[in-house]
């Protein structure tokens, strides 16, 4: 698979692509981006590129029928085309997810749920008249297939990434910033997330029933940070590449661990997914405008779908169910208290979010039970617990945990971003880049680097 943090991408695909992209006259660059994206996708998913292309073309054709000029009601809304498009996109998504879940064998095409969510949002925006200028074919295919987003999102919107106004001129500043965010994201992914993932592996190795309670908590925090560094790092790389090609920065993470409450957390965590559910599910269902009971029901639907979107094993449903309960609790019971004492909201995040990530991480319910029994050892003792396990892991992982925790606060990140054009910061970033390359080279030639036994 061609990943941003692979040598093939860093030193072969991306430099060659960039050179061709910028040597091509501006009006043909979208063609270059489209073909580049298909090559990128096919390198990772082979024949699945055909499905991506077919869905892209189908959505363009249907989208042309859905589009209407909203000036003076010249043309009525084409409901049939819109329904056909939604049935096609949502149907494909449900069909593949269900087949994969039932058989356990059919693998979802790479990035499937990300690009289908984009397609659904595109059709809905067309239908609602939020896209006011008739989309051109190259714009549309590039929007669906663009390689910085095709495999893992973010689920950018047509209007927010720069297609609506076609204001995609590349500036030197944007290019440099894009490169900056790309390297920063690479550092988070390779130097923090990847090594932190070994901590979780260590815990799995010991067996959940045998970890000490301090290690269980360290594992929960370590997993929460690893997930964040991994996904945020990826999102920054993706946004950075986008900027280098002339598109707008897509905000996908906004210091979620600094959030004041669980609801706030999910406005800042994987924000493009959260806002997708808000705009295309929650608000169309009536949002919070139809009374408390309907609001709760709408939230339940959103969180049920969020759970299913992540996977169909029971732990995802428990995960989303717990989040639903927490959000309702915050919204209807302790809302006033959190407004008066924001620290309560922060404590909610710091306590409950790591616990929900543990549910997210462990698909087997028996294992999940064991882990929680070790987190809260009031209900029984572990089996063959070695009380020295916490110190052993802490000695190895404290620097990674500390740096990741610092990056969770907005202050450190903002300080880095603010000084991003200063030479010392740039030099430090170059050092980060080469250390990343070192780690990537070593892990490529030695598959055991991350899993040394």
């Amino acid at each position, binding site marked *: 698979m061609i990943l941003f943090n692979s*040598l093939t991408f860093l030193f*072969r695909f991306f430099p060659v692509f960039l050179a061709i992209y910028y040597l091509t006259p501006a009006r043909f660059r979208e063609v270059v981006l489209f073909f580049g994206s298909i090559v990128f996708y096919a390198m990772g998913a082979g024949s699945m590129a055909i499905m991506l292309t077919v869905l892209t073309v189908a959505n363009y054709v249907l989208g042309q029928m859905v589009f209407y000029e909203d000036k003076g009601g010249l043309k009525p809304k084409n409901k049939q085309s819109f329904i056909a498009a939604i049935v096609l996109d949502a149907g494909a998504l449900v069909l593949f997810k269900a087949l994969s879940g039932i058989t356990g064998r059919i693998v979802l095409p790479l990035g499937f749920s990300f690009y289908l969510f984009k397609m659904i949002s595109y059709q809905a925006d067309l239908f609602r008249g939020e896209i006011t200028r008739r989309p051109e074919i190259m714009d549309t295919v590039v929007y669906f297939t663009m390689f910085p987003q095709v495999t893992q999102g973010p689920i950018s919107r047509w209007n927010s990434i720069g297609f609506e106004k076609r204001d995609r001129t590349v500036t030197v500043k944007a290019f440099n910033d894009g490169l900056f965010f790309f390297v920063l994201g690479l550092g988070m992914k390779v130097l923090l997330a990847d090594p932190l993932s070994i901590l979780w592996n260590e815990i799995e190795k*010991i067996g959940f029933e045998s970890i000490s309670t301090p290690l269980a908590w360290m594992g929960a925090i370590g997993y929460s940070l690893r997930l964040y560094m991994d996904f945020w790092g990826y999102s920054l790389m993706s946004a950075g590449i986008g900027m280098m090609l002339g598109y707008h920065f897509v905000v996908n993470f906004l210091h979620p661990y600094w959030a004041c409450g669980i609801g706030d957390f999910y406005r800042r965590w994987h924000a493009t997914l959260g806002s997708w559910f808000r705009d295309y599910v929650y608000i169309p269902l009536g949002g919070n405008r139809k009374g408390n009971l309907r609001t709760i029901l709408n939230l339940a639907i959103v969180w049920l779908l969020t759970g299913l979107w992540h996977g169909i094993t029971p732990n995802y449903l428990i995960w989303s169910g717990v989040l639903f309960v927490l959000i309702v609790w915050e919204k209807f019971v302790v809302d006033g208290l959190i407004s008066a004492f924001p620290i309560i909201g922060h404590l909610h995040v710091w306590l409950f979010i790591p616990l929900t990530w543990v549910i997210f991480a462990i698909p087997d319910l028996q294992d999940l039970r064991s882990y929680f029994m070790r987190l809260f050892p009031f209900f029984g003792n572990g089996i063959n617990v070695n009380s020295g396990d916490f110190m052993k892991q802490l000695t190895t992982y404290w620097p990674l945990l500390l740096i990741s925790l610092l990056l969770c606060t907005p202050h450190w990140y903002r300080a880095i971003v603010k000084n991003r054009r200063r030479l010392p910061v740039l030099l430090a970033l*170059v050092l980060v880049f080469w250390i990343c390359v070192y780690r990537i*080279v070593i892990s490529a030639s030695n598959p055991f680097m991350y899993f040394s036994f």
Partner: protein
Amino acid sequence: MRFIKLLWKRFTLLCILALTALPLMIIGWSGRKTIYSEYVLDPLRQPGLTLVFEGLHDGVYPWQGLLKPKSDAAEDAGEETTDAADTSAVGDTAVAGSTAGAGSTAVAGSTAGAGSTAAAEETIVYTEAEDSEVEEMKELPENAIAGSVDAIPEGVCNPVMQAADYDVVNIGFLSPDDTEYNTDTEGIFAKNGIYYKLGLVDATYFSDALFIGDSRTVGLCEYGSLKGNAAFLAKESVNVYNVLDQELRYTDHDGETWDAYVEEILSENKYGKVYVALGVNELGIGTTYMYYEKYREIISMIREYQPDALIYIQGIMHVSYDKSSTDSCRNNTVIVQRNMAISTLANGRDIFYIDMNPYVCDEDGDLYEDMSGDGIHLKASAYEYWDRFLMENAIVTGE
């Protein structure tokens, strides 16, 4: 000049990246046939500068290429290859040399020495000796049995547990099926017709034992019942190729810990038994034959420092079905072949092959899923099976 200035001012980060990449590229490409000749470079997928990083990781530094004239470096590279090819020969001589005497002393030593307290006598089965060997029998230790020098009798070592082959193996990690391993007729690895059978012992048996190994042995130390009784010398990620070159964590019989080299520990202490378990981290490195050769060197080294100790070669524990059916290097096909190879080093007299796999694997030879969290290690709660296996498969040589 103005253009360069402008370029620097406008694209500083890109310029620094390019400026730092350039020397790395030059070093990588110019050294690819000399100092980096051992590394494989696929120019379509990776740039030449990756060679510099691979070298750094292995202690090959760029200036080594500059210090040596080109021809020398080339020769060196050539020599290294020849050396690698000749290792077997060199290894054999060394072993033969050190063993001519060692073999016999080992037998004598074990007779007089060990004197372990164990409940093993009852379980050891003796076979009747041939008439022609009666004279020789007089010289044999009490618990020993006589047999032929061609084959180790049943019950002296464990058989190598077989496993289902899921056809995912990368054959680069295997050696041809007809590869011959230990064919010694003299020296420490040769059989001489005197054997001991495996039997049952209690925990005190391990009070003079040393366990050498990788993270699996670390787990045995941390979660098994032998800590505070046996000594352990183990570290995550070690393999037969690097175990002698780095400090491992030593846990002595009282549970005290410090870092030490294998040679250091072996030369400073005397053990009655040395258990070796190495073989997971090198599943993706080299072939079975290379692994076997290194293993053989390590056992020879242990024998040199510990002439009286019983050496137990522990067969590599299998991996789970999930791993074995999907992973091209960490699978039971490779493990079984490697176990077959190292099991030939056992002589049944003072070097034994023991195989714990029947205690932790299903009928397909796959590690039980519920005994392992990651498919490779035993869970903390499953180390008791390893403990039990060790107690039920031990040699008592004295009375």
